[in-house]
């Protein structure tokens, strides 16, 4: 018994260190491989930005398209999702709860299925199918619940009805109340939701792979392409570019979360 205790006490720290290494080491390897002259030879072959340059030459369109789709997704989720978040926070009716459940379906269902459904339904609308807006549709479906819930969570924590009644008694109409009371009070939730939406959109692959065309490739679609057909260094350099775009967003999100606004972890794979 006394022999076993120290061994038992070691399990948790050892497993924690191993888990951290498992999650972090491959990221470090990927970064290193992206700036190494020849990964097979190793770091002694020299460090270079040549591969990053090649990624820029081969794939920069995907970077621009991903930014474009992410910003457009953000715009749509702001216009549609913030009002929706307000409704979710303000109403307890059965219909609103049902709507809330329904809107999570595109997140709960595998992205491949959502993508397939969109392709089979709209594939014959040639211009729509071929445009980047088709990808935007998929991203909006996937991110809308995150914006709405983030806003609803913040609005539920304050006494919104009282504030609204006070404003109404002073003669403020619905639209005026929305922009002068609801939106300012929801700021924290909107910001957290916005970071979440942009991060999810930039990393979305499962739906996007079904929706993309050779002329509408997003960054993750390009990544899959480079992993399959380019040398390891280029795939790594491309991954490095992706990390440089996404990590600042993640840090901002955690900084915000540390200040008291909770954001939800996402579903991926």
């Amino acid at each position, binding site marked *: *018994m006394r022999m076993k205790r120290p061994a*038992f*006490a070691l399990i*948790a*720290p050892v*497993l*924690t260190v191993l*888990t*951290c290494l*498992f*999650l972090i*080491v*491959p*990221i470090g*390897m*990927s970064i290193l491989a992206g700036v190494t002259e020849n990964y*097979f030879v190793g770091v002694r072959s020299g460090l270079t930005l040549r591969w990053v340059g090649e990624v820029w030459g081969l794939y920069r369109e995907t970077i621009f398209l991903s930014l474009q789709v992410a910003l457009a997704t953000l715009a749509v989720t702001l*216009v*549609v999702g913030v*009002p*929706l978040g307000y*409704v979710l926070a303000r*109403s307890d009716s059965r219909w609103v709860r049902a*709507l809330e459940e*329904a809107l999570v*379906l595109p997140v*709960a*269902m*595998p*992205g*491949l*299925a959502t993508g*397939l*459904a969109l392709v*089979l*339904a709209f594939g014959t609308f040639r211009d729509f199918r071929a445009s980047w807006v088709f990808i935007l*549709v998929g991203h*909006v479906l996937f991110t*809308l619940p995150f914006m*709405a*819930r983030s806003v609803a969570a913040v609005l539920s924590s304050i006494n919104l009805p009282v504030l609204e009644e006070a404003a109404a008694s002073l003669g403020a109409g619905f639209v005026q109340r*929305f922009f002068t009371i609801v939106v300012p009070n929801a700021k924290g939730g909107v910001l957290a939701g916005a970071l979440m939406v942009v991060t999810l959109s930039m*990393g979305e*692959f*499962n739906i996007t792979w079904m929706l993309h065309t050779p002329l509408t490739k997003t960054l*993750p679609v390009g*990544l*899959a392409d480079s*992993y399959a057909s380019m040398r*390891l260094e280029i795939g*790594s350099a491309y*991954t490095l570019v992706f990390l440089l775009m996404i990590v600042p*967003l*993640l840090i901002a999100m*955690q900084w915000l979360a540390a200040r008291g606004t909770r954001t*939800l*972890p*996402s579903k*991926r*794979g």
Partner: protein
Amino acid sequence: MRASRLLFLTALPALVIFIAFWLLPVSRLVLVGASGKEGLAAYLSVVTNDIYRASLVNTVPLSAAAALVSVGVAAVVGVYLQRREFRGKRVVVSLLTFPLAFPGVVVGFLVILLAGRQGLIGQVSEQLGMEKVVFAYSLAGLFLGYLYFSIPRCVLTLMAAAEKLDPALEEAARSLGASPWRVVIDVIVPALGPALVASAAICFATGMGAFGTAFTLASKINVLPITIYSEFTNYANFAAAASLSLVLGVLTWLILMAARSLSGQGSAAA
């Protein structure tokens, strides 16, 4: 009445987007799924068709095993991190959650860097004088990838659950002579129960639909997302692709719903 109409109008744009771009396409998917020569029986093909059943038999145990191992590891790590204070803890916790934002294809690539032909595990095993270990493109590689995206999904949930554990209960059990294992099994695990169930369900559901990771790694292994994708692109078998993806969708949704009612938590589908 007026107030509720205003609320309806406020939610209307979201409702329209949902109906036009999700409900209608998915309803159509239901019809396409039954449009093959087997008709409605296509929805049973995941068990009646040998190839699809084999795919299901690969996918379910793989996702289940990955979910169980991930939750087990994340529980130990979560409880440990919750109770220990050390410098840089916040940075460590942040790093642990970064992989949440990686697309599945990136996770697949990281597994290649670990266990592929030029991977770390291969190099280390070679230097130790063993045969070069390469398993990225096998079921084991896929399993490693599933762990990679599942563990971060559980750690934060379990850290939050561990915060609510009452150390006095463990102390009481110990003072009554319980061994460390008994404390874990009789005190800690039951208290973490709802969080364990919810986390496992999310990991299982994510694993079942994990297209990106499998796409990068599993050129040879049939898991359901890959089977669906190749029915669609390689064989233009729209009915099979539609029916299989609906079966997969309903399955993952049911798992998430069941876990939610068991664990009494908010939406598990995040």
